[in-house]
């Protein structure tokens, strides 16, 4: 039944896959029973009341009591299923604090991953077992969908914004990564592997890669080369807001609204700066759309997230465990 050539159940390799399977099995049993009940009734009636000499139909109009019974009982059962499903979904959509981030750019027809430590991968994603992983994704072209059946998670990847999937792998192994949203000619070729490793192995894999500096360091390079630091100074004198510690904090806008400076806000402020201008500043920043690549936007976001006013030096050792980051995490959809 679980053989490789004819499997009937997908591998179970994340913290959410067990709970999802539990609801699935519950539904299988419930719906199986319903099917058996209805089919049995139909077959029994069809045989017992078949037309034959001497047998006549007995007129029955219906019954309000019966109708209300089979309206209200299913409605009650449905609400239980709804609550259970929504509870799972809430978990699936709410990354825990202290997640490890992986930046992802999807394009026709390829998955590009970058770890905060700097390692880049294509169509392969190495992650450690037992660690909460947030995959921060955007698309360079059309809509794609990040789908790892063994983790029971799927999240569409959209152009022009970040969407986030998270999971905690529980079993070492290599699992399918599929693109689940039709994206053109080679949609079915946009597949890859998620390699779940023991933490020690993962550490050695990380250090084995070519060292090009962390993602935040790359971001700092982009930040400096584009001259961002001219306005976004680390004091209060700049023409743009000071970005130190901004990530995860509420930001008061010129129009009176308050937004949380999460990944999507930082991204939007780079590519479409006039949309949400910080209170007290003029909309003088030019758009960087078409000037920076998606990879560079990711690096910039990672750099700005690393700007943490705590004693640790900002760019050298980026931390993603600070209280500011955690607060934003819980707000991610």
């Amino acid at each position, binding site marked *: 039944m679980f053989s490789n050539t004819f499997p009937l159940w997908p591998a179970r390799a994340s913290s959410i896959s067990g709970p999802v399977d539990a609801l699935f099995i519950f539904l299988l049993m419930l719906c199986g029973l319903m099917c058996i009940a209805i089919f049995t009734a139909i077959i029994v009636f069809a045989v017992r009341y078949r037309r034959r000499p001497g047998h006549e*139909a007995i007129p029955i109009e219906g019954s309000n009591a019966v109708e209300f019974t089979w309206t209200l009982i299913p409605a009650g059962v449905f609400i239980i*299923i709804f609550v259970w499903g929504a509870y799972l*979904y809430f978990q699936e959509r709410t990354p825990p604090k202290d997640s490890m981030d992986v930046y992802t750019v999807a394009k026709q027809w390829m998955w590009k991953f970058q770890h905060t430590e700097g390692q880049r991968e294509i169509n392969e994603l190495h992650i450690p077992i037992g660690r909460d992983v947030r995959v921060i994704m955007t698309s360079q072209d059309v809509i794609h969908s990040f789908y790892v059946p063994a983790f029971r998670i799927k999240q569409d990847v959209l152009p022009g914004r970040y969407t986030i999937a998270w999971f905690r792998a529980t079993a070492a192994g290599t699992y399918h990564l599929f*693109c689940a949203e039709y994206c053109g000619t080679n949609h079915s070729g946009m597949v890859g592997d998620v390699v779940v490793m023991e933490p020690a192995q993962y550490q050695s894999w990380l250090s084995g890669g070519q060292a090009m500096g962390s993602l935040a360091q790359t971001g700092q390079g982009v930040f400096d080369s584009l001259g961002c630091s001219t306005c976004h100074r680390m004091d209060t004198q700049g023409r743009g807001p000071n970005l130190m510690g901004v990530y995860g904090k509420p930001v008061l806008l010129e129009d009176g609204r308050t937004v949380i400076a999460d990944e999507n806000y930082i991204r939007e402020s780079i590519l479409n700066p006039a949309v949400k201008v910080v209170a007290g500043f003029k909309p003088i920043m030019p758009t960087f759309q078409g000037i920076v690549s998606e990879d560079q936007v990711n690096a910039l976001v990672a750099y700005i997230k690393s700007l943490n006013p705590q004693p640790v030096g900002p760019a050298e050792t980026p931390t993603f465990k600070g209280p500011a980051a955690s607060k934003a995490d819980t707000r991610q959809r």
Partner: protein
Amino acid sequence: MATTAVALSERENYLNKEYGITSWLFTTDHKRIALLYLITITFFFFIGGFFALLIRLELLTPEGDLLLADTYNKMFTMHGQVMVFFFLIPAVPAVLGNFLIPIMIGAKDLAFPRVNLLSWYLLAIGGCLMIYTILSGGVDTGWTFYTPLSTHFLDTHVITAALAIFVAGFSSILTGLNFIVTIHRMRAPGMTWSRLPLFVWANYATSIIQVLGTPVLAISLMLVALERIFNLGIFNPQLGGDPLLFQHLFWFYSHPAVYIMILPGMGVVSEIVTCFSRKRIFGYKFMALAVIAIAVLGFLVWAHHMFVAGISLYAAMVFSLLSYFVAVPSAIKVFNWTATMFKGSISYSTPMLYAFGFIGLFTMGGLTGLFVAALGIDVHVTDTYFVIAHFHYIMVGGMVMAYLGGMHFWWPKISGRMYPEFWGRLAAMIIFIGFNLTFFPQFVLGWLGMPRRYWQYSPEFQVLNVLSTAGATILAVGYLLPMLYFLWSMRYGKAAPENPWNGAGLEWKISSPPVTDNFDETPLVTWEAYNYDELPQEVPVGR
């Protein structure tokens, strides 16, 4: 067709009243227009079926080997577009509804006979555009036209395909409008709302969706075309647009469209189950209310297609809850059909076999709907073969079974001939077996994680795909049979009596085939719907 009718019946009827191609192309007789629709949608059914067969053949092996990737993508795109817009949506309303609604309510024709003809022409023009799209190289957007893929990344015939569906959509709107006015204004004396056959109620509910929903589809497709031509940026994030907006607009129509496709089928099944159980329907009022409830609630669940698309957590929860609400009236219908058989006198005639098939398959389609409406499960199974299997159980297992059941039930009335009962039953069983073999393995495939719209796939999915393809070939045989013996019966079938099943509806009180004006004099209705307790227990023919 016309010549056989002459030989058959001394009496003048709608088939032999006039001859020649113009008597058909310029007819305003709702019965003749129904036949024009029948020919049109049968043609498109086999085109869409041919595409499906190519898809299944490609999926026989994990490698992409029979078709090119682009060709495969065109096949599933055009399979969806042809089947949804040129077969399923017009199937029961435009063929059976057109033929039967005026007769069932005791009217001579629809309220707007010429608009009815126009509706057919619109479908025909849309159909020609679709065929032009197919012949000139096809389109590979997926039937859903998701942006920005459809607007900025494909150079196939997106605009002609969109235009084809746009035009066909107006056919659907006008048909719905015509039905609503007809049902309100043209009921015979005594034909009160509570005496309407449930087939009429079902088509009434469907018409509401057609009139209110289809314009939104027209708008969405128009925007796709404008975006392609003028690069407006409505769906383009680089210009500040939002690709998800398209999905909201598209599903605002296309989820209710699912009910356009299934509600008329439910109406057909209510007619068949009562007739072949010799019983009044169990819970008439609840059955009528249920179709209206489905039509209304159906407008409030569209974003359940978008649980992983990037909508907010709480929006997803609301749409999940509402999706469970719409499941309640569907459940009521299944229970009531089953209860109608209780203490009946049941014959296993061909239409009843299809009705059994419908109830079984619709139940499975509906119950798997509970899986996909559960947010935590949907994240895993959406965009996989689980969803494909789920909606084919509703659309094909449900709607096509109901359509074929209805075609057999009313064929004696439509053609004036009986179809061969043995072949009818055989085809019904072949279709039932072929259908389950085709689509049940797809539930397993989806749960395992095989995404939809995959041209090549991982080898561990092969066994289930081979089963599915085997089922599809059986299904193809099952669908060819009725077409062959219906054609055969037009020449060689036994002459149909006025009321071969001892049915209760007004359509069984007039000659087979009907005269052009349907009734010699306007009927006066003094009985409740499905008064089978006042009718003979016998089903004279087909046993």
